[in-house]
């Protein structure tokens, strides 16, 4: 099975069923597939070849969904880039994966011409949105023009399940993003395992407020299309009241979120909304505090709550069977169906209950590694128990209880989890170091009731008068919103280790 078969099979089974509710549109499976087919023909005609990386730099939208499946049908590998990514990082990602095509829209379209010139591999750009015109010049097409010019029949399938479905870029401790390589077979396995434990059926209607650039958001789309449900796709959770109204109107049954979303939800008066259709709620990206678990269950006693854990490198890893939630609210559970995990100490010995070690993950959801980065890949993806197999060393410290349920303890590196997103302190520090007059920077995570961890930057200046606003202005111009610090503190100096490196353990 291939990832585009999710759409194709559902279009055959339920051609007239609502597949996607988004941007004020309601598209059936047949309509989504027809658009994806048209786009695939267009991409092939414009030179996209099997294995080409095609970047989607769009907010959650109908075009982003059609692009994902159109690219796959053309034999390409899709790369969804967060639509708040700024020019430097976008250019880095496009160059890193040598993207041949870029989809973009709105405000970001004005960036496209500059990016185009900086990325030699880019052959053409597809613009969408209200103000999309091809005025930018040669190599620019509009989404609507491409769709109109090509037929709606299914193109011949050029790929097999060993080909790559997508690259998902994730923050690394070095500061440069790394592309996690997902084969069709990995995505098919991982999505099937998750559907199995969530017990999804074609009657499920899932609302997704998470960006499609985030694997948790992307898989909502992939899974819903696989089981033939309906996806209600929102741009974000920025307007909780609007999302809640949509949940009521669409009779949503599945609500995936991250702790920040649930923290906002718990502060919101839910009495104006009838949310009785909700069958399940899922949480991942960071653990929910047990108090929030209890409050969520009080507010939605009719819905099943799944606590989960995962990392892009294996998609999902653990889930807590809902019947265990009362007994062990702090646990993120057991290995997802068809996979196994264990805990290893630093000498590589498997350890038993109560002892802390690194979580090791085995199964067909272990992705292929990091795009063209054999060094980073070798550190995390290591030989497994059978010949040719690789298992993932998660970089996360865990312990298990007597019955084998797992508990997250800490990360081995200094990655911050803010709003459920991984934040590399190094990446933020590198941007702040780009400000004239900044001598030293240390970025840490500090506890925050809404964000999980807030980002705090300690800054030492070299006789210049900079304010917090100046620092934040630069940050907002050069990185995604979720990387911008919430707190900036100026210091005369920062604590150092004996070798002269900045010591973060004393900062708070």
């Amino acid at each position, binding site marked *: 099975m291939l990832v585009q078969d999710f759409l194709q099979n559902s279009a055959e089974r339920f051609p007239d069923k609502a597949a996607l509710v988004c941007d004020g549109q309601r598209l059936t499976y047949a309509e989504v597939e027809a658009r994806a087919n048209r786009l695939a023909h267009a991409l092939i005609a414009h030179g996209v070849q099997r294995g080409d990386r095609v970047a989607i730099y769009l*907010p959650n939208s109908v075009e982003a969904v059609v692009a994902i499946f159109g690219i796959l049908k053309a034999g390409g590998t899709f790369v969804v880039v967060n*639509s*708040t990514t*700024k*020019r430097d990082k976008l250019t880095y990602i496009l160059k890193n994966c040598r993207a041949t095509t870029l989809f973009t*829209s*709105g*405000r*970001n379209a*004005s*960036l496209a011409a*500059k990016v185009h010139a900086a990325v030699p591999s880019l052959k053409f750009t597809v613009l969408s*949105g209200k103000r999309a015109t091809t005025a930018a010049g040669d190599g620019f097409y509009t989404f609507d023009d491409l769709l109109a010019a090509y037929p709606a029949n299914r193109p011949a399938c050029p790929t097999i399940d060993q080909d790559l479905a997508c690259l998902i870029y994730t923050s690394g401790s070095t500061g440069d993003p790394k592309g996690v390589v997902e084969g069709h077979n990995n995505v098919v396995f991982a999505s099937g395992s998750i559907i199995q434990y969530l017990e999804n059926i074609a009657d499920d209607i899932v609302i997704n407020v998470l960006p499609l650039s985030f694997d948790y958001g992307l898989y909502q789309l992939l899974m819903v299309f696989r089981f033939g449900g309906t996806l209600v796709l929102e*741009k*974000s*959770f*920025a*307007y*909780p*009241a*609007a999302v809640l*109204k949509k949940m009521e109107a669409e009779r949503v049954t599945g609500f995936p979120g991250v702790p*920040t*979303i649930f923290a*906002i939800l718990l502060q*919101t*008066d839910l009495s*104006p909304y009838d949310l009785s259709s909700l069958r399940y709620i899922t949480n991942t990206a960071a653990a929910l505090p047990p108090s929030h678990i209890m409050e969520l269950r009080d507010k939605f006693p009719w819905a099943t709550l799944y606590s989960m854990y995962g990392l892009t490198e294996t998609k999902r890893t653990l889930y807590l069977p809902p019947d265990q939630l009362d007994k062990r609210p702090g646990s993120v559970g057991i290995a997802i169906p068809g996979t196994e995990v264990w805990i290893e100490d630093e000498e590589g010995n498997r350890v038993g209950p109560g002892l802390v070690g690194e979580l090791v993950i085995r199964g067909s959801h272990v992705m292929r590694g990091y795009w063209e980065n054999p060094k980073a890949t070798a550190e995390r993806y290591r030989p497994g128990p059978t010949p040719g197999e690789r298992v993932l060393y998660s970089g996360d410290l865990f312990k298990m209880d007597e019955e084998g349920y797992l508990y997250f303890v800490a990360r081995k590196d200094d990655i911050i989890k803010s*709003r459920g997103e991984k934040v590399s302190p190094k990446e933020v520090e590198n941007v702040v170091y780009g400000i004239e007059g900044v001598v030293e920077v240390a970025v840490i995570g500090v506890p925050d009731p*809404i*964000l999980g961890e807030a980002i705090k930057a300690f800054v030492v200046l070299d006789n210049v008068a900079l304010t917090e*606003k100046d620092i934040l*202005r*630069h*940050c*907002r*111009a050069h990185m995604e*919103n*979720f990387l911008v610090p919430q707190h900036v503190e100026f210091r005369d100096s920062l604590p150092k280790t004996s070798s002269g490196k900045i010591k973060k353990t004393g900062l708070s």
Partner: protein
Amino acid sequence: MTIEEQIRQYIADNFLFSDDGYQLSDDASFLEEGIVDSTGVLELVMFVEETFDVMVEDEEIVPESFDSVSRLATYIRRKIA
């Protein structure tokens, strides 16, 4: 300053940091243009409450009232009327 000017100024000072020469039009969606996100909207609500001395209810925080300079100005005028 008109209400529109005050909103534009706030957006420019707090969200619109960019070197791409982008010009924000009064009817452009903050969300679609990638100008604000979840926490950005909460900051916008605080700005409205503090600057115009109004009380914003949870269910009023919807795109129809908040998601462009002109929509927000209309909402503020209605609240202070």
